[in-house]
């Protein structure tokens, strides 16, 4: 007969092992949802903490001085919300301090704003003054310019009436003119009322680069007997306008007056070949005949 005592012991051991493993498996299976729930909760807590930290960061960014001045108790309360012990007197004190600092900051801001306003007002006033000055300056300049223009118009009148002037200068209408010296083929007196004639003409020429002005200057110099200058200005006019007959004639006449007859004839002959002008022929004959 079999002895079951030992066998029963073995059976108990076997059952214990089987139930132990089964219990472990069941416990593990049952623990999965709880574990996942716990993990989920943990994750949420982390998120909340993250939010908290981010808030702290934001506060720090907005008002770093206030954050720095926060006492340790506040941090403790924020980081360990599970401990509900809060010192209200200290909190109030802290609140007061924060309020005071905020007030200071606000005052400082207001003061800054006021200063800014003042500065801006000053700047505005200064700009206005400057603008007024500039306006006055401009007015004065305009006035000056107007006066100058008026003067220039006078000069221009004399220059614009160049034909008459030329007539005067050429001596054809000297006798007819009542304003000028009635008698004699006299030279223009540059030191008289038209003493600033040449500078004005020269400036005008520089502004316009008009060959007509250069011819007028050349003519004036020629009449005044300054043949070197008349030659120079006649050449200037000729350079600007090759077709201008007067520039050719004045240049040749000036040369002839300076004793350079051959050169004068050469110039006139070459010009005559081009234009066949009788006036030029007449001048050539005059120079050749020694009547010039």
């Amino acid at each position: 007969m079999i002895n079951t005592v030992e066998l029963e012991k073995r059976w108990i051991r076997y059952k214990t092992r089987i139930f132990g493993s089964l219990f472990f498996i069941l416990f593990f299976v049952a623990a999965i949802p709880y574990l996942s729930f716990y993990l989920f909760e943990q994750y949420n807590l982390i998120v909340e903490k993250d939010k908290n930290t981010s808030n702290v960061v934001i506060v720090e960014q907005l008002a770093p001085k206030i954050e720095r001045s926060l006492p340790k108790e506040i941090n403790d309360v924020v980081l360990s919300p599970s401990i509900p012990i809060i010192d209200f007197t200290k909190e109030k004190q802290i609140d007061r301090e924060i309020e005071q600092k905020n007030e200071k900051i606000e005052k400082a801001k207001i003061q800054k704003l006021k200063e800014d306003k003042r500065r801006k007002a000053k700047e505005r006033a200064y700009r206005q003054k400057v603008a007024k000055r500039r306006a006055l300056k401009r007015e004065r300049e305009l006035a000056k310019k107007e006066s100058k223009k008026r003067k220039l118009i006078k000069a221009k009148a004399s220059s614009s009436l160049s034909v008459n002037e030329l007539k005067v200068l050429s001596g054809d209408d000297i006798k007819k003119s009542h304003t000028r010296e009635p008698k004699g083929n006299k030279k223009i007196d540059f030191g008289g009322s038209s003493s600033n004639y040449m500078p004005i003409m020269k400036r005008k020429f520089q502004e316009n680069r008009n060959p007509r002005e250069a011819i007028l200057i050349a003519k004036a110099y020629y009449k005044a007997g300054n043949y070197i200058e008349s030659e120079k200005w006649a050449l200037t006019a000729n350079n600007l306008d090759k077709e201008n007959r007067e520039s050719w004639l004045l240049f040749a006449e000036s040369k002839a007056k300076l004793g350079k007859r051959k050169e004068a004839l050469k110039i006139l002959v070459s010009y005559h070949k081009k234009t066949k002008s009788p006036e030029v022929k007449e001048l050539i004959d005059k120079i050749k005949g020694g009547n010039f």
Partner: protein
Amino acid sequence: MSKYQEIKNLFIDTLDTDNYVELESMAYNYQVLEESLDKPLKMILLFGRPGTGKSMTLTRLYDTLKDRRDIHYFDAPILSEKEFLKNIYEAMSSQSIPQNMRVNFDGLLKYCQKQRGQRDVVFLLDECQLYSEALMEKIRLLSDTRVVKFVITLHKTDNEEVIAKEHFKTRIWEVIELKNATENDLQVYIQMKLVQKGFVEVSNSISKRDVRFIHQYTKGNFRETNKFLYVVFNIYEFYEKNQPQKIDSKKFSKKILEMAALKLGYLHD
């Protein structure tokens, strides 16, 4: 003898045909085997894993036909050639040979050839995997005389194909394979064993679940099942004598089944 002692003894691995349980699959195999003996076959091979009922089938066949046919059963393998030939001759001639004499194989062949058409002798050889190749060759030559017919059993081993090819390829005309019992076959086998001997109550207490548990470890092998149930009812016997309160006659004890499995090494503590 106590009830459980009797039940226990039912599962002792014996070749007692009184305890033989004819399962459907086994009945079919037996019928095929019996019909094959009437055919002009030289050899019939019965093979299967150990404990599938080969020896039991041969025993039953012998017990059934011994009175009707010239049939001889060598239940234990005779490994000595001299002894084997002597036994063959003695079985055929019904004469005993003196101890100092031996049977000449050529003389035996001639003896068989002389009796061609007159006799049809059947030899049932169990555990043939133990015979030598030389002896197997002699068995083949004897079967060629068409006077002697051999029914041999082989364990289904890895080299079974080699054996079949080398020795019996051209001579075996019938091959019967015996297989382990299915779960249902095993339930029928256990219940029939118990019911045959009048233990209906115990038979009814064994549930399908219990049979599944047994089949799980024995794989439907009859020898293993017998061994398992022998241990089970051995434990039952112990409780019957010492702690009868632990036995529930209506429900087969799972605890005892597990204890038997632990005892046989199917389970480990």
